[in-house]
């Protein structure tokens, strides 16, 4: 694969994960007593926008590359979730998860090979 395609694969997964997180924040906000509509609508709009970017990037990847080649990049999304919690919330990443991150990285670079 080209470096551009690999970069798009990664960007695609970042948009997917970030989009889901925004939608989840919006849904969490609906539990507040007077519903904070500004927060809800901002997060829903952001989430939908990111998922749209993900979708059309994904269709662009599928046009040029085998499905069995780009799909393994989906393995990056649980990894990104965890890294997000680690970077933004200071959550601890257990050793087995670091091993998992390495395996996903190796696997993705194997399928990305020309």
């Amino acid at each position, binding site marked *: 694969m080209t470096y551009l395609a690999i970069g798009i694969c990664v960007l695609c997964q970042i948009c997917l994960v970030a989009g889901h997180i925004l939608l989840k924040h919006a849904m969490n906000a609906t539990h507040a007593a007077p519903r904070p509509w500004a927060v809800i609508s901002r997060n829903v709009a952001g989430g939908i926008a990111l998922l749209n970017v993900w979708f059309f990037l994904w269709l662009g990847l599928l046009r040029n590359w085998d*499905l069995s080649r780009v*799909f393994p990049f989906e393995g990056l999304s649980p990894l990104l*979730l*965890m890294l997000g919690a680690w970077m933004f919330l200071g959550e601890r990443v257990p050793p087995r998860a670091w091993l998992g*991150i390495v395996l996903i*990285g190796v*696997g993705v670079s194997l399928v990305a090979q020309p």
Partner: protein
Amino acid sequence: MRNTRPAWFLNPYFQLGVSAIMLSAAEISLKIGATADAGGAAVTAVFNFGAITSFATWIGILLYVLSFMIWLHVLRLMPLTEAYSLTNVVHITVPAAAWFFLNESISTNRALGISFVLCGALLVAAPSAKAEETL
């Protein structure tokens, strides 16, 4: 409620299987839709807006949404950590479907890469479920 056991078709394990099959079918449909028509745009374009003119793309979107709705139903009945682990079967079913229905050839390297991703995804399933709950 006297009978809290869900009917067999509402069993979360069965539903997860259905969700995985639907996601695989969705990805196959999206692949067909994405390659059906370049929509006049250059094939090197990063975004593929032309794909929405293909019927297969819409079938793919429908299946994707259905698969997501089933996933939400599963999450009501099963802990996220367990669901996250089990849903990794898609790393096998999607490439298998691509091989079977789209005649994609899966080289040794690619098969090896897929197995590495699967093992890694299983290892991060529980911590990433925790991350999803806190993020």
